[in-house]
Each structure stands twice: as C-alpha cells, then as structure tokens.
C-alpha cells in the first residue's frame, strides 16, 4: 500500500509517524509546501516573544523522516488531484501516485479585504516563516487585528519585546470563539493591566502609509503604528479537494472514519469539517491541536482497516498571558444560542471566575479564570461521561457556603455527582 500524505502539520506528521510505528512495511510519502520539518504552530508566538529558542518549535528533525523511511518532499505544494489515475500534482508539475491519500494540508490565514493590506510592516503568525519575519522585525508600535488565541499571544510576545501594543477586535469582546462576554471582559481588563489596550466592536477600514505601515484606520479612530499583525483566523484549505470533486462544506467533509466522499481519500486537521463531540452538530470547526491529533489517529486506524471511530471535535483551549491563566472548553453561550433549557452557573472568588453552561442538566461548556481553571479537566471528564448535573447543582450551591478546601478534587466532584467516592 502506498500512502501519500499532503501536509506536514500536526495532523500530517502524526499520521506519517504513527502509521510507520504500527506498520513498518507501508510505503509512506509526504508532500509539504514548506521546507522545514514538522513544527508546532501553537508554539510560534513564544518563539517570537523570545520565551524559547527557534529550535524548540520543531516536532521532528529532517533526519527523522529518513530514519523512519518516510519519503519527505519539501517545497511541493499540491495543486490538483487526479482521482481517476490516483495522482497528486504539485505546483512544479510533478505527479505523485497513491493508493490511499491523506489530505492534511490545513488552512490558511484569512486576509481581510481591507485597503493597504499589502504594505510593508504587515505580519502574521501562522507559519514558521511568518514567525521568522515577525521575530526579525524591529518595530515599536504594533496593532494586532483580531483577538483570537494567536492575536492575544502575539500581543503578549510583542509587549515583552518592548512594543507598544493595541488589539483591535471586530466583535464586542476578545477571544470570541472561546469565551462569553463576562469572561472575556475580565480578560480584557487583565490585558489592559499589562499595558495592552483592547478596542472591541471596532472595524478596521484600512492601513495607511506610503509603502510602509503608518497607521491602522478604524471606524472610530486612526492608530499610528509601524507594525501590523493579522490574527484574523484560519480558513480551511478546501480548493484542492473541491476541484477534485470531493464534497466540501466550510471545510472538507469527512465521516466518522475520516473518509471524504471518496473512500480512498482521507482528511484530517484544520482542513476538515466534522461534527461536535457533545452535541453531534455537523459543520463543526475547532481548529485545535488535540482535534488534529485525534483525527490523525482515526486516519491511521482506517488506513489499517481498524474499527476506530472519531468521537467528534471539541473546544478546549487555554488563554494565558503574563500571569493571567484562563481556560475554556465545550460550548459558549453563544454557541448554544436558541436552544431550550440552557442555564448558566457563575462563581467568583478573589478575582477568579467560573462560568458553567448547562443544557437540561448536562454540562455543555465551561470557562474559568485563575484557580477555577485548575478543575477544567475534571469538568471535562464529567462532560464526557454525561453526568446529569441537575441534581448536583444544588450541591454546588452549598459548596460555596461551606467553603471547602480549594481547588476541588476529583473525588469531591465525582462524589458529589454520584454519591460514590471510590473512583480514582
């Protein structure tokens, strides 16, 4: 069997190496648009900010591919798939044959259609070469467009390097896909405390300057700057699949076995659209590392004829800057808008904040700042096990008044949930 993998991101790399560890005899080839070994995009802001050296971002060395008999073809951008002849054609016109094809080419940065977006001094932090350029740049005043995880992390990185930093967000609060307004507003306040002002509900109209960036013009003001960072989200790369006649939605559509509409072509990572692990909703995009890894594992299972089924994608992310720690998992209130039986439970203690989202007694999401976040994993375990919190909520009410030792232990939570205490 010849397996061809398009993309050397977290998903592609995981498929290649776990397939190799399970099957020494399979022929594995990999095309990568970039020329470096696999790296971790999540780590890039910390390299930009100087927290870690550049070599730390890598997941593999070039040598590892040879060592594990994976034919690695760098600087090969796949542009088309011949589904009849089972060939992938690259930008340079080379054709690569396959028996099974794995699409793991990820997504690309959304470049908003604003005036002046091609000026010098505009950066991003999606790929390693983006990060290299930003790390080498010497500016003094930066405007970050977009306040997703990357936006906030880059803001911290540049602040640490001595920049004056401002974040501009189109929506009414920061980290809009991870947090609801009450949580996000607390984090905005924290950012301001570290000297990073956040301008929400503000639309960027254009970027001014001769050929270099001079100012970011919004619908409310003009922000003078010499550096602009686009942190405007990632669009799944679907053109390659779409032109080959593979079914796509917002991303490439896959089933529980991570097969596309053509069974010999599988897909995983940021380029796919799957279903939500907790609600079963389709059209779900959580472009997060753990989802890419889980999907890649299912791909390997399917390639080997196993019975693995994807459990679905779910949101789990931390927001960390300076000494502020926050986390979110599952749905936000916005994400379950319109459904019945939704309830919110909030807790606050010494500036820390906890927000739980229930639907008909079942936990659907949680957001936490500070020490409340330490119990996120315990809550997630309970969400997976679909505990009915309806009964438990009364106990949670009591917990505050009894002032129990803190943070809560697994035993406490589980014990409260089902009255047993023997669970490890």
């Amino acid at each position, binding site marked *: 069997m010849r397996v061809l993998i398009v993309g050397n991101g977290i998903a592609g790399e995981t498929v290649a190496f776990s397939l190799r560890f399970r099957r020494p005899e399979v022929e594995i080839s990999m095309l990568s648009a970039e020329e470096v070994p696999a790296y971790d995009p*999540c780590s890039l802001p910390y390299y930009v900010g100087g927290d870690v050296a550049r070599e730390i971002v890598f997941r593999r060395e070039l040598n590892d591919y040879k060592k594990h008999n994976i034919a690695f073809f760098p600087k090969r951008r796949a542009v088309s798939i011949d589904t009849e002849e089972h060939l992938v054609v690259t930008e340079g016109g080379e054709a690569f044959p396959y028996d099974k094809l794995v699409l793991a080419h990820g997504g690309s940065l959304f470049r908003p259609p604003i005036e002046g977006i091609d000026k010098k001094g505009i950066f991003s932090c999606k790929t390693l070469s983006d990060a290299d350029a930003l790390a080498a740049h010497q500016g003094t005043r930066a405007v970050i467009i977009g306040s997703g995880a990357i936006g906030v992390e880059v803001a911290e990185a540049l602040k640490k390097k001595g920049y004056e930093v401002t974040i501009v967000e189109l929506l009414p609060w920061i980290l809009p896909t991870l947090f609801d307004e009450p949580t996000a507003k607390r984090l905005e306040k924290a950012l301001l405390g570290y000297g990073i002002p956040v301008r929400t509900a503000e639309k960027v109209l254009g970027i001014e300057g001769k050929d270099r960036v001079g100012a970011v013009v919004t619908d409310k003001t003009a922000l003078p700057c010499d550096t602009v960072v686009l942190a405007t989200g990632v669009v799944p790369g679907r053109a390659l699949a779409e032109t080959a006649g593979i079914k796509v939605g917002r991303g490439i559509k896959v089933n529980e076995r991570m097969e596309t509409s053509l069974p010999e072509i599988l897909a995983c990572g940021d380029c796919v659209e799957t279903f939500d692990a907790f609600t079963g909703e389709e059209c779900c995009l959580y472009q997060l590392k753990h989802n890419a890894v889980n999907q890649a594992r299912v791909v390997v299972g399917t390639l080997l004829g196993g019975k693995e089924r994807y459990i679905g994608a779910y949101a789990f992310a931390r927001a960390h800057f300076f000494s502020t720690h926050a986390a979110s998992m599952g749905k936000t209130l916005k994400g379950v808008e319109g459904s019945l039986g939704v309830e919110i439970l909030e807790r606050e203690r010494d500036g820390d904040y906890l927000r739980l989202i229930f639907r008909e007694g079942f936990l659907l999401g949680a957001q936490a700042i500070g020490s409340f976040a330490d119990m996120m994993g315990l809550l997630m375990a309970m969400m997976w096990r679909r505990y009915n919190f309806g009964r438990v909520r009364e106990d949670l009410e009591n917990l505050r008044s009894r002032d129990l030792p803190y943070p809560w*232990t697994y035993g406490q939570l589980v*014990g409260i949930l089902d009255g047993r205490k023997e669970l490890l």
Partner: protein
Amino acid sequence: MGLKILIVEPEKCDGCRDCEKECSLFHFGVADPDLSFIRIKEDGHFGSFIPVVCVACEEAPCIDVCPMNARERRENGAVVTNQDRCIGCRACLYACPFGAVQINRETGKSGSCDLCREDREGPRCVKACAKQKALLYVSSTVVRRIRGEGSVETIKQVLRPQVKESLS
C-alpha cells in the same frame, strides 16, 4: 509482564502526607508538600483523603494539548514535563482529568510524577506508604487482579471517553 504502574487506593489513605514529604525530598531536596508531585486532597464532602498523582494515561490528553510539545513519555511509562520547553501555560493541568499536574511555585512550570525516574528503590511515595498501602507500584497484570475488570473499565472510560457509545 509489562510496565509497572502506580495505583492509588484512596480508601486506605489516612492523610498522613508522608508521601508528599518523601516526594519533594527526593525531587527537590526539601520536605515541602507544596513541591510534591503527589498531593493528598481532603475530600470536604466525605471527610476522606484522596491521593492525586499522575497515572500516565495511555492516550494522555496533556501530551495532545501542550503547545510546546513539552509533555513527554519516558521509557518507564511516566509522562513528564521537559522544563526547557515548558512556558508555564498550564494547558496540561487544564486537560488532566485528575488534576494531577502540579505547577512549581518558583518556576511557574508544570511537573508531574516521574515514578522517581529509574531509581532502584522505586517511587518514594510508595515506600512512604508501606504501612497503609494506599499507594502501590505493580505490574499492569496485578492491577487487573486488585481492581477487578469493572474498575479497570471505569478508569478506561475516564481516560478514553467514548461518548457516542454511551449515547447509543
């Protein structure tokens, strides 16, 4: 035979906290429970004690979520934090279904049980608990005998959740 596993039997724990002291003594040279990788949590609801320690999950969520690839599995099966890579973001702690990752108060970085590395004497917490036997360091086959298949299944469910199955 397989790897040896550290298992916890909370009902035998009397809350003496000798394990915490021995752990920090071995790893940091001081008997300071606040540095220990194993923590005894007092269950306020039932008044019992629960030793919380990394159980080195087979598919460890902390490894999957770490943005820096700092969570690594050692040859002895332990999952530890590479201190050169860790940026102290706590993603591993937030993802842990046991809350078993500890944050070092000095460095802000994460750490968890390394099973006392390759030390011949085995994990110090187990030695410290020789009388109560709430902590055991045994091969995986023995675990099955002690716990019975039922509890093994329960643990598996927590570690490798299959929500779709439980729904159907």
